[in-house]
């Protein structure tokens, strides 16, 4: 009989408990710290302030908007990959992976140049006569979504590419022979097969976007406040750690619920093309 591999998991399990589970438990415990003992006052303070509630909604909206934009861009790129030859596929993978090899901070600061008054977007709009004066997309939610879309695009392209590369290319031909038009092939054949990859990508993009402190702070400016900045403010500026812990738990909880819902959808037989 083969020996169990469990002993080999022990170091990893120990590390996960020590550096992930335990800190999370501490964070959770700290969020209940009150003036006179354990209480829900930090949660009441956070959720009772309309400003914080708006920040929470903004963060969720930013996540959804970025998921939407990365999906709209990611699907065509993944389909191009699927229909392409070996050389083009290599180029697509290379162009997808290259940005991931640079730091998030570097990419964020590159976007300052792109979105700025003297950046290529402003120059192009002026050259096309669409605007008479330089425009800046800095400190706007639109500019932030543009930056986040570029930064998180690989997170949705890679799962899609992984799934599509396993599909035979004559799949669409079979559907077309049966009388389906291009859109019908897309909606009834390809999209259902892509759903597991899309769900995985959405989970990654949403989690990455809602926690991207640097990009939110630098591109979004102070007018677009999101939960990570709120946590940083409470920890680093106001030293109110119990409240910061409560905010972090709320962020974990809200993000967790969304991710759980997406995970459950990814296991739904009819949705993922088995039905």
């Amino acid at each position, binding site marked *: 009989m083969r*020996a169990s591999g469990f002993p080999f998991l022990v170091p990893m399990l120990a590390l996960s408990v020590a550096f992930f589970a335990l800190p999370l438990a501490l964070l959770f415990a700290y969020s209940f710290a009150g003036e006179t003992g354990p209480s829900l006052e930090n949660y009441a303070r956070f959720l009772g302030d309309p*400003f914080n509630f708006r920040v929470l909604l903004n963060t969720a909206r930013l996540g959804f908007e970025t998921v939407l934009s990365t999906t709209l861009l990611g699907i065509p790129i993944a389909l191009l990959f699927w229909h392409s030859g070996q050389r083009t596929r290599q180029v697509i993978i290379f162009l997808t992976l290259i940005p991931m090899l640079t730091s998030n901070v570097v990419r964020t600061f590159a976007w300052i140049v792109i979105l700025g*008054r*003297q950046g290529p977007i402003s120059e192009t709009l002026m050259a096309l006569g669409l605007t008479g004066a330089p425009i800046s997309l800095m*400190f706007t939610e639109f500019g932030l979504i543009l930056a986040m879309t570029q930064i998180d695009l690989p997170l949705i392209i890679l799962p899609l590419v992984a799934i599509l590369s396993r599909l035979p290319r004559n799949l669409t031909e079979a559907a077309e022979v049966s009388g389906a038009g291009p859109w019908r092939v897309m909606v009834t054949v390809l999209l259902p097969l892509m759903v597991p990859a899309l769900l995985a990508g959405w989970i990654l993009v949403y989690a990455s976007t809602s926690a991207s402190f640097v990009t939110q702070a*630098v591109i979004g*400016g102070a007018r677009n406040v999101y939960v990570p900045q709120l946590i940083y403010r409470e920890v680093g500026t106001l030293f109110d750690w119990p409240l910061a812990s409560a905010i972090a738990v709320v962020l974990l909880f809200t993000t967790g619920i969304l991710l759980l819902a997406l995970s459950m959808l990814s296991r739904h037989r009819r949705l993922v093309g088995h039905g």
Partner: protein
Amino acid sequence: MTEFKLTRRQFGLLAASAAAAGLLPIPARAANGSLVAATFPGNWEDAYRRVLTPLVSEAGYDLTIAPALAQDQLAKVMASPGAPAYDTLLMSPGQMAIALENDLIQKIDTSRLSNWSKLDPAFQGEYGPTVTVEVNGIAYNPDLVPAPKGYADLFENPAYAGKVSWTGFGSNTAVMAYTQLAKIYGSGPEDMDAVFKLFADHPENLAGVVDSTNSQMSLYQQGEIAVFMCSTGNVAKLKSLGLNAEFVHPETGSPAAPVNIHLTKGSNNLDAAYAYMDAAISQAAQEQLTLPPTEMFPTNMDVALTPGIEAFVTRDTIPSLVYPDWALINKNRPDWIRAFDALVMG
């Protein structure tokens, strides 16, 4: 019962896993003969690494410069009071008051600093030496806007509409400017409602609010902003990068903040920390730091002021600068931060 066998390959994998686990970055205290010194990010970090590392090395110690804003330094030391992240801190009186309140810093033994007597008595603090005085004012781009007279000009003169950047109340530079605005438009430095009303009446000034002075420096380089609240050091750095930038003393006075090195309570590297402090106030270091791109005001009396520094401040004008009431600021700061953030978000 299952028989447990371990092949050579499996043993090798296990050993490799254990070795890899050992390589994980577990926070370790610096060994004897070394220290971790917190400095402000950007210009300070570059300068202290370049100028002080060799001097401390000559004294026989390894110096690690760790960039962190003053508030972040406090947060990190509060996080592990028994084993502080830094052996020394760099901060202004506002943060020093919080550090004292939380028992994070200790009095220094001045007999261990050979350059102590070279400091002006005003800069000989019992909790550490003052290494420079940051003079604050307004930075502007002469290519884009005229020279502002003061803070009020930025709100009342249409030439600045949409071209001024501000930061939140977490920044010392910003909070000093806001207390000045409170004096101009309100009943005194504590009357921040007057400042909030001023911003509400001039929403164009809310458009360019960012998180920190460092972000403003990046935005200035890209031509995104033309005016921001700054120290003379910020302008010196912009000039050293070849940018057109000028400094203005506001007509109501220039806020100033002494910058001190403090000895962290619980530091195990006292010898190295004293060597570092001594190097920071030495003539050799301060002479280098008076030059561009830092142009720091020297607190060592043997160091001559350069023309570049004298253009902003002299030893005689230092006492006449505006020194904010940090006790008042610290008392109100949390409320101000929250109120301003809500105002900015709209």
